[in-house]
């Protein structure tokens, strides 16, 4: 095909998007909905990954001791914990209740000290004596935790491990659901785009019959429809990335309290923007192309009465 034919046909395809703008908008909308769900799943899973690696790098269990222990008892509990299997003694430290308060004040701001003092009396806190223990191997988490619980003088413990377990479960659920969702949504998008092309084709049957009458090849007739499908795919991809950028910003702001509790930094949008843009473009272009090719081929294969039967 000559370059100027290609140029002409691209123009025709674009003109057609405009002439059938209602259907074009519908197709882009449906494509965007599918892509957006997919993109949000990706964003979620990126962030879960980051939380997980933060948690895993810590391997930390905060062990709170009973209130009524004497200093010697505290010291003995600390030593017992340090000597447990799977506990790294070098990274296991004792945090006295006043140190704990300092830590709290450090994060909350020193101006809160007066409130603590006013509340509990100067020098007193209700913060427990704490041992910050570090595990060597997270695989042996359960055994280690029960060993810790069995130490006399241990009141309770706190670890981000529970959160990690929940997050892993949620993530794998979302991944599985996500794959099915993507398959389903891709099919729906395909059907909708195919329908758009079919409707434009119905409107353009006249044009196609004339094209055939003046000796246009099937490739020539198909071309504008392919341009149309691909362009709709590209438009949907770009818009979706834009919308997702905004949604992501809003979501992070809304989740700010939770995020600060987890003390992790959300993955910046730009980290995965190019990946999702590429995925969207590929999906959009493939969906547009398949839809237009399938639809028009059904019509072009027909032979006989191609001019009379309008």
């Amino acid at each position: 095909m000559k370059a100027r034919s290609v140029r002409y046909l691209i123009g025709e395809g674009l003109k057609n998007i405009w002439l059938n703008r209602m259907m074009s908008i519908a197709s882009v909308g449906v494509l965007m909905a599918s892509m957006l769900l997919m993109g949000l799943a990706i964003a979620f899973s990126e962030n879960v990954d980051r939380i997980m690696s933060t948690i895993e790098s810590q391997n930390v269990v905060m062990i709170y001791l009973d209130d009524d222990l004497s200093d010697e008892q505290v010291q003995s509990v600390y030593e017992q914990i340090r000597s447990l299997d799977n506990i790294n003694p070098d990274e296991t430290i004792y945090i006295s209740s006043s140190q704990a308060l300092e830590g709290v004040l450090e994060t909350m701001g020193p101006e809160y000290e007066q409130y603590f003092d006013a509340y509990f009396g100067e020098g007193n806190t209700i913060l427990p004596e704490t041992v910050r223990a570090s595990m060597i191997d997270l695989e042996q988490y359960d055994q280690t935790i029960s060993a810790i619980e069995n130490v006399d003088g241990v009141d309770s413990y706190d670890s981000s491990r529970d959160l990690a377990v929940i997050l892993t479960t949620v993530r794998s659920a979302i991944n599985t659901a996500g794959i099915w969702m993507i398959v389903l949504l891709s099919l729906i998008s395909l059907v909708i785009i195919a329908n758009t092309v079919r409707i434009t084709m119905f409107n353009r049957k006249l044009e196609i019959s004339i094209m055939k009458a003046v000796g246009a090849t099937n490739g020539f007739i198909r071309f504008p429809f392919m341009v149309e499908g691909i362009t709709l795919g590209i438009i949907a991809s770009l818009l979706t990335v834009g919308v997702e950028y905004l949604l992501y910003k809003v979501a992070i702001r809304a989740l700010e309290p939770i995020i600060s509790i987890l003390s992790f930094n959300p993955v910046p949008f730009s980290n995965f923007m190019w990946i999702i843009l590429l995925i969207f473009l590929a999906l959009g272009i493939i969906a547009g192309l398949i839809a237009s090719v399938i639809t028009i081929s059904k019509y072009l294969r027909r032979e006989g009465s191609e001019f009379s039967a309008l």
Partner: protein
Amino acid sequence: MSSGASQPLIEFKGVYKTYDNGTKALSDVNLRIDKGEFVFIVGPSGSGKSTFIKLIIHEEKLDAGEILVNGFKMSSLRKKEVPLLRRTMGIVFQDFRLIPTMNVFENVAFPMHVVGASKREIRKRVSYALNLVGLGRKARSLPRELSGGEQQRVGLARALVNKPSMIIADEPTGNVDPNMSYEIVDLLTEINRRGTTILMVTHEHQLVRDFDRRVVMIETGHIVADNAGGVF
């Protein structure tokens, strides 16, 4: 143009066409049309005139015999060759078939885009064709702004813009008023005078008599008369 040894453009040799539902539309049709001729096809409704045309433009396939059109053998025409065959002819439709969203100029230019003509060629040929049919001033009009006769003249301009060796017209005057019919056939005569073979199906007997050309008459799928001079 057709002086001297005449060259065949269309040849029917023992052609049969039966539709899938069993209708025998054409039986043992033998006919030769030379380059430069102007031929009217007449006959009662349902006699097979349109079928005859459809076989020439390869809208339908023949069952038996052979048809040669511009060197293309219709019995063994490959799918890929159909567009090439059609580029040698200009087809005029009874219902005009203009694209409503395109203006007159764009409608006429349409077949030239299909063959990948340059902008310059397109401008030159389209204005030539539009002037020939007397619509040079209506290039920017939309089809709906034109009368039936004018619309069919746009159809004619479109059919001749790619310099086809023949123009095939199945009842081109069927949807225009009688005075306009004469104007259309006048134009076809002029196009024929410039060298293009014309094949036209019509019901208008008076028109055929007045234009004094070769007349092929079909009845129930057979050619029953083939006379020169508007006689049938």
